[in-house]
């Protein structure tokens, strides 16, 4: 389990993390989303032991991460900006990783050659951005990490490769109980893979729930009333719009509760539609003062 407890970090007077707390359960995929400059990458750099927090605790399995080689040996990190030594090829980096990570899986490296069509003798810096990302995934997955930390992982990957990468990651989660923390702007993609989501802004986690909890807490309803619209004040409507006589309502509450309340009002037509993660974030936080335009692609 990854835990950040009241972590603060200040850069030249700017408070990048402001008492941030989050919990990533073991064996799941946790999506960390937030607008630009919200503190996602800073939080991840604390989890990977790159940054030292000013205050608070950064723990993996209850142990501090900073300068803890036993913990860091179980963590693989793919940053948004892939790094490789000057003129180092995938083969060179494989040799390097083998020296650093004792559990580096050479068989897996060979097996994954088909999944990642990269010339392993070509300098990584000479590869395209997408190919560099593939190389980073290839090497990271061969480290057999218990914790996989991904910062904007699939930027630059084509749709086929994205699917392939996620397939490998989800396979590891299912087969080995790997814990994955992924930060992204791409809510639609996260919706497909994450089982937990945390939204971060101004260096704080605003909401941290499982995806099903989030979806159970809000409904999107289409309704048509005969004649005048009845009083809907008993419902916690977050947003409403109308096309002709069809009203679309985003209502906070469980499906059962809202269905019961609506049925009592005897509408001509009533239907519940699935809410996307994007809509949940927009309507959950829309009333707050947060700048949400950056959250959603």
């Amino acid at each position, binding site marked *: 389990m990854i835990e950040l407890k009241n972590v603060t970090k200040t850069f030249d007077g700017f408070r990048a993390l402001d008492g941030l707390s989050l919990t990533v359960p073991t064996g799941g995929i946790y999506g960390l989303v937030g607008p630009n400059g919200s503190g996602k990458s800073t939080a991840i750099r604390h989890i990977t*032991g790159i*940054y030292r927090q000013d205050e608070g605790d950064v723990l993996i399995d209850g142990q501090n991460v900073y300068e803890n080689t036993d913990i*860091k040996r179980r963590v693989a990190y793919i940053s948004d900006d892939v790094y490789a030594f000057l003129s180092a090829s995938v083969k060179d980096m494989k040799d390097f990783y083998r020296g*650093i990570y004792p559990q580096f899986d050479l068989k897996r490296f060979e097996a994954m050659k088909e999944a990642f069509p990269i010339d392993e003798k070509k300098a990584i810096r000479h590869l395209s951005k997408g190919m560099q990302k593939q190389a980073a995934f290839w090497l990271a997955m061969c480290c057999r990490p218990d914790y996989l930390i991904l910062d904007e992982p699939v930027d630059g990957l084509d749709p086929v490769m994205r699917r392939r990468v996620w397939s490998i990651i989800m396979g590891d989660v299912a087969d080995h109980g790997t814990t994955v923390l992924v930060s992204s702007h791409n809510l639609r993609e996260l919706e497909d893979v994450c089982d937990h989501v945390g939204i971060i802004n101004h260096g704080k986690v605003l909401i941290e729930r499982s995806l099903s909890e989030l979806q159970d807490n809000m409904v999107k309803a289409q309704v048509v009333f005969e004649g005048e619209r009845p009083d809907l004040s008993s419902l916690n409507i977050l947003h409403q719009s109308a096309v002709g006589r069809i009203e679309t309502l985003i209502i906070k509450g469980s499906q059962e509760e809202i269905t019961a309340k609506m049925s009592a009002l005897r509408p001509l037509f009533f239907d519940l539609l699935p809410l996307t993660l994007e809509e949940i974030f927009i309507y959950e936080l829309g009333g707050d003062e947060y700048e949400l335009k950056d959250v959603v692609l």
Partner: protein
Amino acid sequence: MSLKTSFFNPTIAKKGFKRTMPLWLTHAVIWVLVMTVVGGNLAKYYDPGAEEMGNFILMTVYIGGTLMAAFFSGALSEVLSNYLYSPSSIGFHHALPIKREALFFTNYLTVLVVLLVPAALTGLAAAVVMPQAVGGYLLSWFWIYVRMVVFFTGFAMVCNHITGHVGIGFVLYGILNFAAFLVEGCLKFIMSHFLYGFTVGYDYVTMPFSPIINIYAKCGVVCLEDGMGYVFTGQGYLNILLAVGLVLAAAAWMFYRARRSEDSREIISAHTLRPVFKYAFTAGCAVVLGVIFYFFFHEFRSGDSAPSVAAFAVATSVGGAIGYIAAEMLLKKSMKVLKRSWKGLAAAVAVILLCNGAISLDVFGVVGRIPDVDDIESATVTNYSYDYGAVVMPEDGILDKVVSLHSTILENKEYNESIYYDRYSYENGKRYSFESITIEYKLKNGSTINRQYYVPLYYYDKADVMHTNEVYGTLIDDIFSDPNVLMRAYAPVWDVNNYYTTGAYCDFYGGAFNGYADYDAAVYAKIRQTIKEGLMDGTVKSGRNYGADEGQPYVIVLRLELCKQEGYDRDVRYYDFTVAPDSPLGAILLDGENISGYSGDLPVKNLDKATSYDDPAAAETDPTVGQEFDAGELDGEPLPTTAVEPVQDPV
């Protein structure tokens, strides 16, 4: 078996070796070329002895090794530390399951190993190709190089770990190797230029902070006293450098431990050092650029004019302002710093102007400082007109005259300065000849005061006749002609037990006479003894005074050459005296019986026994004709016993 230590990581080391291969291969090739190819050729074709090979080996490490160690340690440290300078590389390295101590010490050891292992192997190869060289020289060569490399690597590591941008650490390392020396040189210029009479020595107190220069200054290769080999001097200093290098490496490690990964791309990543950098850079620019600007925009343009504190204040203010703004730009990584930094800039310029004001007004009393007579242990007055320094002791009873001379010079400061820059014109009816007068006090508390002044000691009237300036002339003459001072000044002349006479020659000038004579060794003792009497009664004067005194038809200028030999060290002295023809010494010098050879026209009796060098046949048989004494002639040979003529000191 895997290495179980948190201070070393073999994978990082392997990567380091590979990444730095071009550098350490170059380093190794240079040593191989010098030690095996050049040294081997030397040994094979010139067949020198063990001593000369030792000299070659020690000189390579002294001359070349210093620069090699300085450059390659700096460059390798820079390359192996440059992962600190970009967010992606520092993120990559610090996310790895490797402790910082392992990253640091692995890189540190990598630098030492890639420099010292090839050097050691080169030393072994050199032992094969230079069989004449005894192993001790090669061991010494390697041990000297080890200490240099350890020092420069520690120094470079500190520079690399307090900076956060590619190349800045190496540049800082280069600057810091010479900065103290440069700044002290500029400060010395400022002090001697603007503080009236202030003198600066050739010793640099900040030299230890300029290690490359200091190694060349403090160390060297010298021949052993018995001539049986060479030795590297400065071993103690290199031991200090070794210790300092290790301390610097520890300091670099402390800076790395405290370093924040997010400070990559900062110019100075150590936050505590940022103010130090800003103000040190400002002060350094104020001094160095100030001196440069002052030279270019004042001295070169106005030529031989009085020092201008106002011009210097402007120059240093501009230099300091440039330094302050540049430091702010570097620290804030922005060109737009004036809006937020103008107050600091104004304060910095104000401080610079205050310093200039302090110099101008002599706030610290440097210019006006004259010691009390009771505090003086000894004083030495030097003037070009006299070929000796007048050493005055309290028991001489004339220390008050030295102090009086000093205060007279200071009282006449305005006068001296006002005429100095017009000294070649006759605007005031006189053309002044400025002479240097230096006064050095050794005080009873162990401190010293050194001052040098240029004063109008002589002047020429419109008929071009020289006169002594009455302001200083009497005081100077009183000091220099004091009997005790003279005894001290010419101590080697009286020290007949240690100083041998190697020659006595006279030039005759004036009237109908213009000639030269040298004297028999048999008369040397008599000459030396009579000089003392002449100096006491005033018939012999120090130095060459070509203007004949009133009543004298010509002058005799005597040159006496003395030498003291201790082992292979030789102390050669030359003394000139102007001798009155009608004095006892004049009588000796004018007696042809004492002359061994001569040329020209001399007012000398009994010259018929002496050899005339004007006779070509005689000149051919006498190889010394027309030759000055050259101490080099006696190199390696003991002095002739005929030159020894101890006499009892009659004084």
